[in-house]
């Protein structure tokens, strides 16, 4: 994989957006929350390509915002994201859909992620005396046991994120026997969570399996064919750029 010759200049953000979009099918209802530029773009991308009937719900309480008038802003709740919406759908109503077992998918981050794809978004150190008080899990604790598709993402594929034992379990990852698919998408690779742990599915162009494995505190499952994560087509890149002319999607990578 590392024998790169003419890999186009493509930012990990765009690869991640495409990978996220590929988790979305036509029958899904997908939700994104705050601080979610990549999921927002992925949802638009999926809806404009292979999943036109996907139900798009977001933290602005807007249903199916118009991609032709959408312009990604710094806050995911920016009212300009609700442009030409079909309906006001309160976030609580989306939670109700999850409770009713509807085919809801959710994108969530993780400050720490373990081999079961459990996540910590609460604190580094103990809850009572945190070394770092993180912003908190938002919908994580509630939604992770209820969704049919859980897509975790991190732009910081590192031993600090992929830990043996999170300091706090804010979200539940893989659950055996449950109708719930768990995917982890990073700036280096894509995993599926399974009984055996995090199963490496693909590495991004220019990334080696070693790059992936060496930057995790536990060993992911590496077996069978490891594909190269597909990159956005030219048309898809155009869509992404049109939705995000200001490059907000790169903000997560600067920190």
């Amino acid at each position, binding site marked *: 994989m590392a024998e790169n010759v003419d890999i186009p200049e493509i930012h990990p953000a765009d690869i991640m957006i495409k990978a996220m979009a590929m988790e979305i099918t036509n029958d899904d209802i997908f939700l994104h929350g*705050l601080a979610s530029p990549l999921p927002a773009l992925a949802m638009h991308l999926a809806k404009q390509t292979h999943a036109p009937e996907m139900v798009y719900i977001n933290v602005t309480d807007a249903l199916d915002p118009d991609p032709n008038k959408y312009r990604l802003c710094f*806050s995911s709740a920016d009212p300009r994201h609700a442009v030409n919406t079909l309906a006001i759908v309160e976030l609580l109503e989306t939670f109700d859909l999850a409770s009713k077992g509807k085919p809801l998918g959710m994108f969530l981050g993780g400050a720490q992620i373990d081999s079961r794809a459990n996540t910590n978004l609460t604190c580094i150190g103990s809850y009572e005396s945190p070394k770092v008080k993180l912003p908190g899990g938002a919908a994580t604790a509630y939604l*992770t*046991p209820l969704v049919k598709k859980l897509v975790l993402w991190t732009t910081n594929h590192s031993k600090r994120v992929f830990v043996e034992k999170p300091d706090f379990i804010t979200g*539940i990852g893989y659950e055996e026997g449950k109708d719930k698919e768990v995917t982890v998408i990073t700036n280096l690779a894509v995993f599926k969570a399974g009984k055996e742990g995090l199963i490496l599915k693909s590495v991004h162009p220019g990334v080696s399996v070693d790059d992936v494995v060496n930057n995790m505190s536990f060993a992911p499952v590496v077996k069978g064919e490891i594909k190269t994560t597909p990159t956005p087509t030219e048309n898809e890149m155009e869509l992404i750029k049109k939705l995000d002319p200001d490059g907000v999607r790169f903000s997560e990578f600067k920190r």
Partner: protein
Amino acid sequence: MKDKLVDAEKAVELINDGDSITFSGVSMVRAPMGFIKEIIKAGKKDLYIIDREPGMDFDILIAAKAVRKVRFAMLGFELFGLAPNFRKAAESKEIEWIEDTCGAITNAFRAGASGIPFVVVKGILGTDLVKIHEREGTWKVIKDPFNGEEILAVKAVNTDVAVIHVQKADRYGNASIEGSRFEDVYKAKGAKKLIITAEEIVDTEYFKKFPERNTIPYFYTTAVVHMPKGAYPTACPNYYPPDYDEIRRYLSMCREGKVDEYIKEWIERR
């Protein structure tokens, strides 16, 4: 209907030191920032502030030493980073905090609006939040009386005060939230006292013409304050977007240790 239109200085007297309060909005949208300023000006203390996903409203109240305790599902500035004053106060244990999760706190507000003492919610079981809230007395794992399965009971939240910024209200307290409502209607209907701040004071005829836009009818409202740009620097849908530059300026000054200077200047600015 009683005339409830008062100025902000009068309305802020409805808040007592030690009260539990919730605010409208989410992150950088429709937080009642103008009224937050009044709370700081009035020197309120020991507040217990509760919300789903607050941001600058909570952080600046914490910086101003108005807060005893914080409850939230997420508290930060999204892509701009952590909430500096909250983080500092939490890590140094100057304030108490309890982390919630959106599905529980929003259901707790809805239960509060419904007048029921608690609500059961799915999800959550298996996470470490359960033991935190069982210790706090806010959640309890119970058995579904019909099928015997474990499920989480969440105590209703009825705050002493809710401060809700809306686009339009009349002087009697009929109020219209335009666009995203978040949980604001539930917060309003569940609170013991409700302060409405509004971009515009409209004639009651507006509601007679569009009754379905009356998201919070007058009988819930304790006081109405006319406060144009009352959400600034957060957004007010149909009126103005968030002022990201101003929010970043706040964060920069906080990180430079100049939050008191920011607050002073903010209070003096009209």
